[in-house]
């Protein structure tokens, strides 16, 4: 018998296999069409803008576009000796054009990033350039200021020729490319970003640890108490969870301030003298205390949902086999809660590492995190490309943890409330 006749046919005479595949594809398309609006919306308003951040963070076209002729003429220059006359001429022409368009200020800011000292000599050049005679620009420019005769400054300009740069990422790690193109660290006392990264990791780690130590006993209590009591206690966990973050931060600001309730209490029980109240806010202590309390529910809820599924008879079995309560707990109960611990810890760590509001309000100078630095560059220095670079470095870290979380817990298993 040939295989052709062996196939089962539907009533339309189409082979069943083909017909099923067609139906399957139709269902696939149907399911996808349901997801499509949200997916498209997120792609346009969210995922692509994150890609835009990536572009901004490596983008260095500004100077490239401001000095097109200069960079063209510099292609042949090897950078060892002073550039030839044609480079000076091209630079003069580019610069005059920028002055006409009133964009020379931007150029001086940009070049000053690359090498200090450009601002003043560009200003001087602008003044003098009005009276330049045609021809022999090399001599005329070099005569404006002695730095214009320094080959270092011309090399600095050449370094800005590429349209893309890794400088912002290096800056985020307190490194830079020196004149020889090597990647080196900045001086020890100017390594502010490394301090911030380490502090962010440190605070996220200890907040996670504190949350775990506090959440474990109460999750256990909630999971083992009879329903009517545990429901009541659950409110203590859920009410902060639903309450505005700013309200909770505000309450910590009231509690922790120098004339605040906690200090009043310490004075009352005689722990500290009235005139020697400790500063508990606007430093790391404030950040630790407030963040731990705010993130605690995120640890309790996953732990609770895992503990709820552990049958009490397991503990009884362990005890009846001769284990002391501690041994039974350690050998039977604790290993069963590890999925919950993993979920809770990763969730809290991810949230803590990107925290912004609370550290900004109670952290002061010594308790702020990397997010605060990003916000600072977005709002104050307006160095958006640097903010983007820092944000993406943070994002890379978070996504790595998220990936682990997905492998361990599964994204479908996130539980809310």
């Amino acid at each position: 018998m040939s295989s052709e006749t062996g196939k089962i046919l539907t009533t339309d005479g189409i082979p069943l296999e083909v017909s099923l595949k067609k139906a399957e594809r139709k269902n696939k398309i149907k399911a996808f069409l349901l997801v499509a609006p949200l997916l498209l919306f997120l792609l346009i308003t969210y995922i692509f803008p994150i890609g835009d951040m990536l572009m901004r963070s490596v983008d260095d076209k500004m100077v490239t576009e401001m000095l097109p002729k200069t960079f063209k003429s510099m292609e042949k220059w090897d950078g060892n000796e002073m550039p030839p006359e044609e480079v000076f001429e091209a630079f003069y022409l580019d610069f005059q054009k920028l002055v006409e368009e009133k964009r020379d200020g931007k150029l001086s800011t940009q070049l000053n990033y690359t090498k200090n000292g450009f601002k003043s000599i560009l200003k001087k050049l602008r003044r003098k350039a009005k009276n330049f005679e045609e021809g022999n620009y090399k001599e005329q420019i070099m005569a404006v200021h002695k730095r214009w005769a320094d080959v270092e400054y011309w090399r600095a300009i050449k370094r800005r020729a590429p349209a893309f740069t890794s400088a912002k990422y290096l800056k985020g790690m307190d490194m830079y490319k020196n004149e020889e193109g090597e990647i080196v660290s900045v001086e020890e006392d100017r390594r502010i970003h490394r301090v911030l990264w380490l502090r962010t990791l440190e605070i996220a780690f200890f907040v996670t640890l504190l949350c775990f130590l506090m959440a474990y006993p109460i999750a256990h209590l909630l999971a083992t108490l009879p329903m009517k009591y545990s429901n009541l206690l659950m409110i203590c966990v859920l009410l902060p969870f639903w309450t505005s973050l700013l309200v909770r931060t505000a309450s910590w600001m009231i509690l922790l301030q120098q004339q605040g309730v906690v200090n009043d209490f310490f004075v009352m029980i005689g722990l500290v003298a009235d005139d020697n109240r400790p500063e508990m806010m606007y430093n790391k202590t404030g950040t630790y205390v407030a963040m731990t309390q705010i993130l605690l529910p995120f640890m309790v809820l996953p732990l609770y949902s895992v503990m709820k599924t552990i049958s009490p008879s397991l503990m009884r079995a362990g005890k009846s086999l001769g284990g002391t309560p501690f041994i039974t707990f350690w050998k039977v109960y604790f290993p069963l809660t590890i999925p919950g611990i993993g979920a809770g810890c990763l969730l809290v760590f991810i949230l803590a590492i990107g925290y912004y509001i609370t550290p900004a309000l109670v952290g002061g100078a010594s308790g702020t995190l990397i997010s605060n630095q990003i916000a600072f560059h977005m709002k104050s220095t307006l160095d958006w490309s640097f903010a983007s670079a820092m944000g993406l470095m943070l994002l890379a870290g978070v996504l790595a943890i998220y990936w682990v979380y997905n492998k361990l817990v599964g994204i479908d298993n996130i539980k809310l409330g």
Partner: protein
Amino acid sequence: MALPKYTEPHYRIWHYVYIFICTCVFFFLIAPLFVIFPLSFNAEEFLSFSEGMKNLDPDAFSLRWYKDMIYGTKNPWGLAAKNSFIIAIFATLGSVLLGTVAALGLSSRHMPYKGLIMATLISPMIVPLIISGVAIFFFMAKAGLAATHTGIVLAHIILGTPFVVITVTATLSGFDHSVTRAASSLGSDPVNTFMKITLPLILPGVISGGLFAFVTSFDEVVVVLFLAGLENTTIPIQMWTGLREQLSPTILAVATCLIILSTLILVTAELLRRRSERLRGINR
């Protein structure tokens, strides 16, 4: 949780230590919220308990700051509350609509690339808010939607949908698909089946997702700080400004109102969760 009579003394002690630790943690969790209540009725301008308050002197308490919140001249709270509610309501509607439809697709067993798409849809919840803020700001600035209500609503839809997707997918995981097949076999078209059969069954999940989306929008400050102009100020922005510049008791009055609001939302969410568990036949 009574101990059996035969418990040895050192376990007995350990048990009481355990209860003590739990009490302390619960206190740590909930007590800070309750500091705000009495202080918002402070007659004076300080943010600590005055002598009069400690002695429960009625003169030390007043509704001064509540009056200031509502009637105070050049007080931004009225506008902020109006904006917050408008933005939160539209953001919730948008999130619920997009999120529920997407969750229906995701729960289908025919969905291709489920893991990848789910991860993408959930990402606004995982990515640190500051990064979302920067990205969304770049988009809104390009689209000319910065400092508009529309822009903020769209931003909050982005942040709110993951919650709806998660809660509705969770509800649908226990969903018996034979009821929709039964409806189809009885001649109902897909839209009718959805409205009459599916939606009523998944409604608790949809509403609790909506509550999450509402709270997210109502409480959101990081992204709004990037997007809002003077006209679009919201309650969180006003609180943020107030907390940064000077802690005034008016903020505590607002905070008290917010705590009451969140209590209401909590109760609603809890009732819904129980109803949903009952409907899905999960008995505990």
